[in-house]
């Protein structure tokens, strides 16, 4: 009761010294139950009062110590003392016996609580086994040894009778513990009477069967003790341990009662033989029934935990599935968004290209004027010079005027002219690129080999004058616009020819290979190669080489290849040659999005 660690010391001491009223009630209850059970035990005694097959008070004492702890010892001691005193033992003998009858169950209970940590519901096989071994077999060695000692010391039993009396004493106590304690423990653990419907009917049937079979079995002298087994097993498998324990107790009571009154299968032979038969039967019945009950309970628990695990798994699966579905929906939404973006981007791209087209186109008109009137100025200057030659002007003035016309005006016009030319090249590049982007494609399967053959043929003259050798390898088919792809090959071949290394026989190889979903093509030359500095800007619009006017330029062919859903890149070693490669889709599905 005292908890000195957490309560004020005075308070805890006070509580410790004054037993609580409930505790007193418990003590009284246990003592009365003990005495009553002792009377029952005497009533069940065979022939003489010392020989009892079952000594119920021991079971009550063991259960009381297990349920309420060591502190109820006074009740057990008092019960035992009073019971023995009533049966006309001398006072000191009764007290001596009471000491052992208290100590035995106390030790058994301590062993079960401390070491086994017994479950009062006896729901595990180990609970049943340890209750049998520690609570019954071992603990009752104390009570019987002590009891017999006191009887001998009191001169009530002669020494030579000691082994027989000890045996009978031990058997009675052990059986009391084994048969009575489980019923008390299990019902205290779960006192609910919660049978409903079919269960209640089943319980009623089992009880009726048990009562009927018990009475019949233990009323005849035929060896019919065993028909109760299936019924106890039935209860053990189908009900909880409390029902099983009660069923065993009931059968035991009938069996002991009938045997004590010379009925039933166990009445043959001597008193010791009777006792032996009866006790063996009861022990086997009890251990079997409780073991089966424990196994059934363990199985039920395993099933329940499995079911719980299954349910948890199921709910987790549902949860995960929901998460996955959500993720899928999110993904679909992102995909949709991406689709919109791609469309928007394609549209923007078209807008930009249209804008570039209009702007570059409009920029041409003023350029026509700039160039045209520069030309007019040049012509005027020529006229001026002619007029000057004809006019009679002072030589130094004439020279000065000539210088002004030739160097001043003429120089300025040359700068204007070259700038306008450059401007024009840039505009042309822009126009070409925007036109490449806007051009409508007619997608078909391209006979690349035929296309390249005709492209090379178109360059026949250039190839001849450059004394170059063009070899054509395998060329797989591809899907695309034949005109646009022709421009790509034409441009790459044109570039290769244009940048051949002077003084080295030109070798140009055109080939292709089939990749997984793409056809890959290359145009390889042994020409001048691309300086490192030029590489990053190779495919840009205003690349200087590109704006020079011939071909449609690398920026434009990159646009063509990308609109087809392909890729273009260049590898080059400066001074040794370049390889331009590009891919084109083979099947319809790999086409560019803006086709």
């Amino acid at each position, binding site marked *: 009761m005292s908890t000195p660690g957490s309560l004020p010391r005075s308070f805890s001491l006070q509580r410790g010294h004054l037993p609580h009223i409930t505790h007193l009630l418990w003590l009284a209850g246990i003592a009365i139950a003990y005495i009553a059970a002792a009377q029952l035990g005497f009533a069940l005694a065979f022939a003489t009062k010392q020989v009892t097959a079952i000594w119920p008070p021991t079971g009550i004492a063991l259960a009381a110590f297990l349920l309420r702890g060591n502190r109820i010892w006074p009740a057990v001691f008092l019960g035992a003392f009073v019971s023995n005193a009533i049966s006309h033992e001398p006072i000191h003998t009764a007290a001596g016996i009471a000491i052992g009858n208290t100590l035995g169950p106390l030790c058994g209970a301590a062993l079960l609580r401390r070491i086994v940590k017994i479950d009062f519901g006896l729901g595990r096989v180990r609970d049943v086994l340890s209750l049998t071994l520690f609570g019954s077999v071992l603990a009752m060695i104390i009570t019987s040894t002590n009891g017999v000692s006191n009887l001998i010391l009191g001169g009530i039993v002669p020494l030579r009778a000691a082994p027989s009396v000890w045996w009978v004493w031990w058997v009675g106590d052990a059986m009391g513990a084994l048969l009575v304690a489980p019923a008390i423990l299990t019902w205290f653990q779960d006192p609910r009477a919660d049978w409903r419907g079919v269960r209640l009917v089943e319980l009623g049937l089992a009880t009726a069967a048990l009562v009927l079979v018990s009475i019949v079995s233990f009323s005849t002298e035929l060896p019919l003790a065993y028909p109760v087994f299936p019924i106890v097993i039935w209860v053990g498998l189908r009900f909880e341990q409390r029902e099983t324990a009660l069923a065993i107790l009931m059968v035991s009571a009938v069996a002991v009662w009938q045997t004590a009154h010379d009925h039933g299968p166990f009445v043959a032979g001597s008193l010791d033989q009777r006792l032996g038969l009866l006790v063996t039967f009861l022990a086997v019945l009890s251990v079997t029934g409780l073991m089966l009950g424990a196994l059934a309970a363990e199985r039920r628990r395993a099933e329940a935990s499995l079911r719980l695990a299954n349910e948890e798994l199921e709910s987790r699966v549902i949860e995960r599935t929901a998460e996955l579905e959500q993720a899928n929906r999110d993904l679909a939404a992102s995909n949709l968004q991406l689709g919109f973006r791609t469309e928007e981007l394609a549209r923007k791209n078209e807008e930009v290209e249209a804008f570039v087209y209009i702007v570059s*186109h*409009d920029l*041409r*008109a*003023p*350029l*026509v*004027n700039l*160039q*045209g*009137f*520069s*030309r*007019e100025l040049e012509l005027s200057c020529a006229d001026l010079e002619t007029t000057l030659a004809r006019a009679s002007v002072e030589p130094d003035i004439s020279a000065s005027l000539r210088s002004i016309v030739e160097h001043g005006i003429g120089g300025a016009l040359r700068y204007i002219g070259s700038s*306008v*030319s450059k401007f*024009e090249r840039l505009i042309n590049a822009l126009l070409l690129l925007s*036109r490449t982007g806007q051009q409508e494609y007619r997608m078909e399967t391209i006979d690349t080999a035929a296309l390249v053959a005709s492209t090379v043929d178109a360059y026949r003259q250039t190839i001849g004058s450059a004394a170059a050798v063009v070899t054509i390898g395998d060329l797989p088919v591809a899907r695309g616009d034949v005109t646009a792809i022709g421009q790509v090959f034409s441009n790459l071949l044109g570039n290769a020819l244009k940048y051949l290394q002077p003084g080295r026989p030109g070798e140009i190889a055109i080939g292709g290979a089939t990749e997984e979903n793409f056809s890959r093509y290359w145009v390889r030359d042994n020409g001048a190669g691309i300086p490192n500095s030029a590489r990053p800007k190779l495919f840009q619009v205003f690349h200087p080489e590109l704006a020079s006017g011939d071909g449609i330029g690398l920026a434009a062919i990159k646009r063509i290849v990308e609109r087809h859903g392909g890729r273009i890149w260049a590898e080059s070693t400066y001074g040794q040659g370049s390889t331009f490669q590009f891919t084109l889709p083979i099947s319809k599905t790999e086409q560019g999005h803006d086709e």
Partner: protein
Amino acid sequence: MNNVSKSLTVVIVDDDPGHCELVMRNLRRTGVSNEFVTIHRGDEALDFIYRRGAYADRSASGDILLLLDINMPGGLSGLDVLREIKAAETTRQIPVIMLTTTDDPREINLCYDLGCSVYITKPIDPAKFMEAVTRLGLLLSVVRLPSENMTVISRE
């Protein structure tokens, strides 16, 4: 070069006065001595052809050759002018030479479909410009334009 019919009036329709001037000068240089009229808007070009508005009291004698730009501000483009002239019975015979900066094949085809006689792209390069205008002058010199029944200059 001088055998271009004197009664032929060359009407240059271009929103850029500089372009009009350059075309005129270069044509003169090639020997074309016809009367030139420069107009900067599409609707004015139609006014001239149909003798209305500012050109209501224009002399009806003589023939017209139209040098027509495409991109012009003010509502009517060169294509609109071309379409209207070629749609009307009385003016269908007027030879129209498209002279523009556009080298877009779609535009070129459209102009021929509408009935233009020649399509010439204005080159920026003055030498090429000169060359183009010289060709134009040559073209004008071989054109025979009966006053009542003009010959349509064949396509190139």
